[in-house]
């Protein structure tokens, strides 16, 4: 279309008098109060210019619509548009979004079309004599009332979709989601036994973030423990936070809910398709706001049941492990992975510190074991050092304290066993 040249000659298609003085061969009738001279005459040459201009203007939204079409045809995740996602609510939201976008595009094309027409034809350089009209009550009323009705038209589907989003009742299962600085905790509420609880940390290594390793496919959108949900099940989310305000957002589920410390918010979802869906924290929550992603793994009911009992077995296993004694090597290996997951962000990959104190050669890590354990388990009130005792099992705590005391050149030779952690907590 942009390559099409507009015809040199014009076909006069108009009816009646012209309203635009200054063009050769036309009458000088100046009924000044009539807008929309466009409606009274158009020549093919002008139409051509107009169409070209409108095309260029519409390019952006057209790209979006094309991507929507490509998406429907099964293309990759859209990079220019919202996705309908895998829930009914998500599809409703997507449809609403597209309708509003279309309406805005059409109105915009019309409005800008009129403006660009003016820019081209109502120029002083063409010798145009300006009109003098400057008001019209009829027209003002019209363009107040008509948009009002268009808005009502938009508000109706919007209201129904919103009511749908708020329908949190009759869920088949509940998950308590807690936002922490800077990770998520998921707790599956179980009426009949203990809740399955775990933390979900960013899994992307620091090397990828700091550009010494090439970035993986799911850079910044991968976690160690995803939230696993069964398909076709209404899941109710109870969302809260441990410290500051966070927000849990998964675009493909069309769920976003603020996590507010001290309060519980509700949201729900019912997914129709198995798959892995990724999201991020959507409320500024401190330095690693961009580094606490969400991964939801939707599986069949059978796989979910299997996973859940696996998790419960793991919890039981940890209980058994808590009574065991480990070698230094075993503790160091486990401790390093716990350290990388839970301590590195603030204390540095080499224990050099950062937001948190250095661990290498620190008074705590080379000092009394009891005090070191105390800090790890109960944190330091009034600082950013959280009480990790409530966030990791005793085996992990024993391992990470052992690791801290022996890595980074500390070489204390100490070993902490899970039972030591348990006893410390008991007092």
């Amino acid at each position, binding site marked *: 279309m942009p390559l099409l040249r507009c015809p040199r000659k014009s076909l006069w298609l108009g009816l009646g008098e012209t309203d635009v003085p200054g063009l050769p061969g036309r009458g000088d009738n100046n009924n000044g109060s009539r807008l929309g001279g466009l409606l009274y005459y158009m020549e093919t040459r002008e139409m051509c210019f107009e169409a070209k201009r409108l095309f260029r203007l519409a390019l952006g939204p057209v790209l979006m619509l094309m991507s929507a079409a490509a998406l429907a045809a099964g293309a990759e995740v859209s990079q*220019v548009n919202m996705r309908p996602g895998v829930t009914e609510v998500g599809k409703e939201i997507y449809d609403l979004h597209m309708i509003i976008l279309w309406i805005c595009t059409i109105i915009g094309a019309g409005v800008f079309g009129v403006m660009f027409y003016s820019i081209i034809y109502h*120029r002083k350089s063409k010798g145009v004599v300006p009109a003098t009209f400057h008001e019209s009550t009829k027209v003002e009323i019209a363009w107040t009332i008509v948009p009002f009705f268009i808005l009502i038209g938009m508000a109706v589907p919007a209201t129904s979709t919103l009511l749908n989003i708020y329908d949190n009742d009759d869920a088949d299962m509940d998950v308590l989601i807690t936002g922490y600085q800077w990770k998520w905790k998921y707790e599956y509420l179980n009426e009949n036994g203990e809740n399955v609880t775990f933390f979900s940390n960013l899994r992307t290594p620091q090397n990828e973030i700091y550009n010494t390793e090439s970035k993986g496919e799911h850079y910044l959108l991968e976690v160690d423990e995803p939230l696993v949900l069964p398909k076709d099940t209404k899941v109710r989310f109870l969302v809260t936070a441990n410290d500051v305000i966070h927000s849990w957002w998964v675009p493909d589920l069309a769920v976003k809910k603020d996590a507010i410390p001290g309060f519980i918010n509700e949201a729900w979802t019912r997914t129709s398709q198995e798959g892995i869906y990724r999201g991020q924290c959507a409320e500024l929550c*401190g330095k690693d706001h961009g580094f606490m992603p969400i991964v939801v793994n939707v599986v069949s009911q059978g796989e979910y049941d299997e996973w859940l009992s696996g998790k419960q077995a793991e919890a039981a296993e940890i209980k058994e492990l808590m009574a065991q004694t480990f070698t230094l090597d075993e503790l160091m290996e486990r401790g390093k992975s716990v350290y990388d997951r839970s301590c590195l962000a603030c204390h540095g990959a080499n224990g050099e510190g950062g937001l948190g104190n250095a661990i290498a050669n620190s008074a705590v890590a080379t000092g009394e074991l009891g005090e070191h354990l105390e800090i790890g388990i109960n944190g330091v009130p009034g600082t950013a050092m959280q009480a990790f005792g409530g966030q990791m099992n005793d085996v992990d705590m024993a391992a990470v304290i052992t690791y801290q005391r022996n890595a980074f050149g500390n070489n204390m030779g100490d070993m902490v066993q899970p039972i030591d952690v348990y006893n410390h907590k008991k007092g």
Partner: protein
Amino acid sequence: MGDHHHGPAKGLGRWLFTTNHKDIGTMYLWFSFAMFILGGFFAMVIRAELFQPGMQLVEPAFFNQMTTLHGLVMVFGAIMPSFVGLANWLIPMMIGAPDMALPRMNNWSFWILPPTFLLLASTLFMEGGAPAFGWTFYAPLSTTYAPPSVTFFIFSVHVLGLSSIMGSINIIATVMNMRAPGMTYMKMPLFVWTWLITAFLLVAVMPVLAGAVTMMLMDIHFGTSFFSAAGGGDPVLFQHVFWFFGHPEVYIIILPAFGVVSQIIPAFSRKPLFGYDSMVYATASIAFLSFIVWAHHMYTVGMPVAGELFFMYATMLIAVPTGVKVFNWISTMWRGALSFETPMLFSIGFLVLFTIGGFTGLMLSIAPSDFQYHDSYFVVAHFHYVMVAGAVFSMTAAVYFWLPKWCGKMYNETMGKTHFWISFVGFNLAFFPQHFVGLAGMPRRIPDYALQFADFNMMSSIGAFIYGASQIMFLYNVIATIVSGTPVSDEKVWDGAEGLEWTLPTPAPYHTFETPPKIDPAHAHS
């Protein structure tokens, strides 16, 4: 008594002690431009880090300081003072008054600003760093978890709030009491109307911001629990109080811009503003409505559905008077005799791009869709369209339009037009792609992002640098004009310009309208 109207005093003292509205206007404009450069520098750091995925230049904690200061400096240091400067220069001249109603308070309103922004910028060097909780500073990130510099931040907000309140009182008192005889309210230029309404908004909501930061101060230092659940408070209360200020604030930013464009478009269309009365009523409606829509910034916070619906309907309503204004501007152009000097280019740019921002605003007002847009780059794109392509373009147009009247020299038109086109391209390249990444799922206020957002982020950074660079051209043009531009001596610098200021000599003398002008009763508004 003798004639005490000599020219301006000499030296630094002139500027420190001036009570002349032209001098104070000039100082506001230069100060705001310096803040624009400072805020722009912070933006360059942000866009440089976001040029590629991965952390290359700064640490995440510092990045958050950059986004926070960028917002604070641009909103409170660049945009708001720039329009106050315009108000100072133009309002007395437009209504036929010799100066502002309270010239000494006018001096204070300005001079408390530079030290305050120095203090705010200095927080970068304090222990714990500058504020890093976003320009919207939600609790408890900004209370319990804030760095020590938060107290200086609170103090700064109080001072610049005071400056705005004093300035607004001055504007209202001037417009209500000092119009030349015969200049009725409905004969005032629209720029004066929009500033009058803006000033009322400011007097009403700046104290609410002061209240919010005072409650923060009390929570941080005096053991209260306004925003802490532990003591029976609620972090969401902060959001309600902040946005009760925050929403009228964005109209405070844009209404004067509407006023500027309403002066420039008629001038370069050589045709009166279409629908003057409707424009006044539309502006007043927007101002009233702005008080009842604040929670559309909080759709995901867990409000009861009735509240969400109310705020959605009220917000959608604002599209009506805003649309009326856009239609009126276009009708002003329709069948005029248009010419496209730089002020007109920026005004038309405003018209197109602000309208696009208005459309995305309408999309955002739809609460269910907003669950996908909220806190994503879609919002960032929206507000940059309305604030940069809206307010900043309008401000730029204003400078080109009135600079010749202020200093008696004409700017370089070719350089002006080049500035426009580079700004236009740079701005759209910077911000249009942000709609895409926002819709595709990129949250805001993150220093690093997933790989699927990389291409558009790179584009956006390039655009931002281009836009930033073009402002240097603007600065050069303005300085060169003042120092050695072609002299202009016609009162009506622009053949289509209407208004009392265009009846004055060029450059405008230090004291003007010491005797009120005669307003022709038959002559309409300008």
